[in-house]
């Protein structure tokens, strides 16, 4: 419906008349909204930029302008803590390197020309390097137990490892749900619907209080791993439904052709069905990844030290108490950057794939 309108660059006056002042009511609404936006934005700009305190050793200067100017000094002072949590201060280059490595991996995986089986190998190698860097204990690096991992690094780790393990599991679940074998199908449906029916918090609470009961005496796994397991099990159920959507989009003839060629079930699945199904499913998969990335923030409830928790802990210090609005705006910007990038990518990809299919 926007096709009929002239483009922004054509003629500014014509564009204004066409899009903002095309009738008397619309002109009134436009002016009213513009006035309201100005009334709201001007004080916000004053607060966030003009009167803001950008850096200060303590919060005294901030308290003087409270309500008038934002206290970004909180972020400036605490940024190392927010990024890396309680990781040993002089070792911060290690998680920083890991963050950069992860970002490179994300970007590389986003490019279609790198979509080939070798990418899985690259990811595997990358995750091993990250594990070595984070834990240390070799190549002269001090060992850092994972209770001390934290901040943005932990958020990225939870999300990345979560998806890396949940994705293969979800493919198995989706295949199981479409299986001809009733026992397999019932179990997969039961699992998927059970997990999707309960909130993630209940799974996280379960992982933190119930999982220790499941294990034989003397065996214990730490809190980070328990939460990671819960998140993997959770993500797998949601991803499985997306993968199932992709599987359903593969035409019946493809299955029959593969059967006719005498391919076994697994060869048929690996060579014929999955390559087509996953390609269709990529945009919704990315959307599920976005949801999962946002959901990692829930670990704050079971006391894991992710980005949001470190911000809360920084706020808990008496010196910085009461600057929650600034802190959460900063957290929003960080999460938004990652999620918005992913969602734009997913929309572009959807357009590209749709174009390719038409050719």
């Amino acid at each position, binding site marked *: 419906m926007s096709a009929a309108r002239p483009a922004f660059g054509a003629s500014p006056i014509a564009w204004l008349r066409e899009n903002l002042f095309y009738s008397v009511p619309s002109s009134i609404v436009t002016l009213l909204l513009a006035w309201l936006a100005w009334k709201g934005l001007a004080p916000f700009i004053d607060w966030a930029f003009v009167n803001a305190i950008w850096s200060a050793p303590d919060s005294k200067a901030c308290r003087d302008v409270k309500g008038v100017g934002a206290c970004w000094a909180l972020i400036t002072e605490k940024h190392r803590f927010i990024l890396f949590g309680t990781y040993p201060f002089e070792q911060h280059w290690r998680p920083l390197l890991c963050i950069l490595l992860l970002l490179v991996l994300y970007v590389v995986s986003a490019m279609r020309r790198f979509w080939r089986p070798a990418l899985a190998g690259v990811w595997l190698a990358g995750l091993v390097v990250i594990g070595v860097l984070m834990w240390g204990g070799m190549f002269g690096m001090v060992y850092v137990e994972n209770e001390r991992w934290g901040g943005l690094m932990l958020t990225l780790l939870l999300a990345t490892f979560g998806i890396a393990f949940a994705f293969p599991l979800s493919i198995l679940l989706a295949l199981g749900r479409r299986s001809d074998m009733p026992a397999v199908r019932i*179990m997969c449906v039961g699992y998927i619907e059970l997990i999707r029916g309960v909130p993630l918090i209940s799974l996280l609470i379960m992982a933190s209080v119930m999982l220790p009961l499941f294990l034989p005496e003397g065996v214990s796994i730490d809190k980070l791993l328990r939460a990671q397991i819960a998140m993997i099990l959770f993500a797998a159920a949601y991803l499985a439904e997306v993968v199932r959507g992709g599987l359903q989009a593969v035409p019946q003839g493809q299955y029959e052709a593969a059967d006719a060629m005498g391919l076994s079930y697994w060869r048929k699945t690996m060579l014929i069905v999955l390559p087509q199904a996953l390609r269709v499913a990529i945009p919704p998969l990315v959307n599920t990844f976005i949801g999962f990335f946002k959901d990692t923030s829930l670990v704050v409830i079971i006391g894991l030290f992710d980005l949001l928790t470190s911000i809360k802990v920084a706020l808990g210090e008496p010196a910085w108490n009461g600057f929650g609005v600034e802190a959460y705006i900063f957290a929003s910007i960080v999460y938004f950057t990652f*999620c918005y990038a992913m969602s734009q990518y997913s929309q572009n990809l959807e357009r590209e794939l749709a174009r390719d299919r038409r050719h």
Partner: protein
Amino acid sequence: MAGETGAGVGADARRSPFSLNNPRVRAVVYQVVLVAAVVLGVWYLASNTAHNLEVRKIASGFEFLDRESGFEIGESPFVSYSAADTYRKAFIVGLLNTFRVAVIGIVLATLIGTLIGLARLSHNWLIAKIAAGYIETIRNIPLLVQLFFWYAIISENLPGPRDAVNPLPDVYLSNRGIVFPVFASHPVHAWMGFALLAGIALAWGVARWARARQARTGQIFPIFSVGAGLILGLPLVVFLVAGAPTALNRPELSGFNYTGGGVLTPEFAALLAGLTLYTAAFIAEIVRAGVLAVDRGQFEAAAAIGLRPRRAMRLVILPQALRVIVPPMTSQYLNLTKNSSLAVAIGYPDLVSIANTAMNQTGQAIEGIAVIMAVYLTISLSISAFMNWYNKRIALRGATR
């Protein structure tokens, strides 16, 4: 199972009924192995759990529900509760609190979301862009961060009750929450409730009669306005007959807080604001997709056969748009209900938060988790059952027309 390949399998089966090369035999073997593995795994975990519980001297079972809870709950608007009550009652209070925020949230999110979805379709560039900006921003920030944000705004940035913000007469915003006047309780309120129910029943009857008459004679009855009149009018008549008691219960400052009036605690207000605004962004996209899914030709065709705009909307456009809108809307309602469990992070006493407290006090982790999961599964399954029924109804009506 294996139905589509019946003939081939039959031939195989005749040749070697118990060979592993027979797909049917193989399928049975696979399934037996899988079921055995799962049963073994569950048995292993269960026996570990039983042993661990024994070692830690935790008695399993739901007997603890009848014990005294010993903790206070911040808000319980529907039933009176004190620390001397049982865990069972505490769970009920939590459940009611979950329902309270979920129901109000669903209604508000639907209204706001529809408005924003339509705004995004507006021909006015400014309205459309503001709506799009809202949707993009809200959808890409975790709900939990938004909840913390709203809670920080209310609890840190609003003044204390003594210098509360007073935007409307008798409405006060302070760091203790939002207080507002309510109608003082009066027996007529119960009668107005009955009148409302009677109005709904009458409107339903009239609608049936009108449909039958239209089928018989072709005459159209203005059922929408008459129905609305009955449903809203009857309670109004009762209200007026009782002498229109408009006495207000106003909030008043006494000491450090307000007494009287209605109150939204900071926790409830932050949770409701967060859930509503977050879900509204998703609903807006659903509504937009629903409206776009109806072909322009449908409007024109409806006009061409002489339907007035309102009837065209009700008979032609809405049934088609709703068919696209209802299924994703269901999952948004479910999401909102499940997301209300984030209340535990800002201290609103919902079911999860109370179960969490109870688990910490009693050590009855399995039972606590079981209660949470059972409740959410029940809610999920009933909402999806209701929506499936509604969806089927809409689809059928569309199909028979």
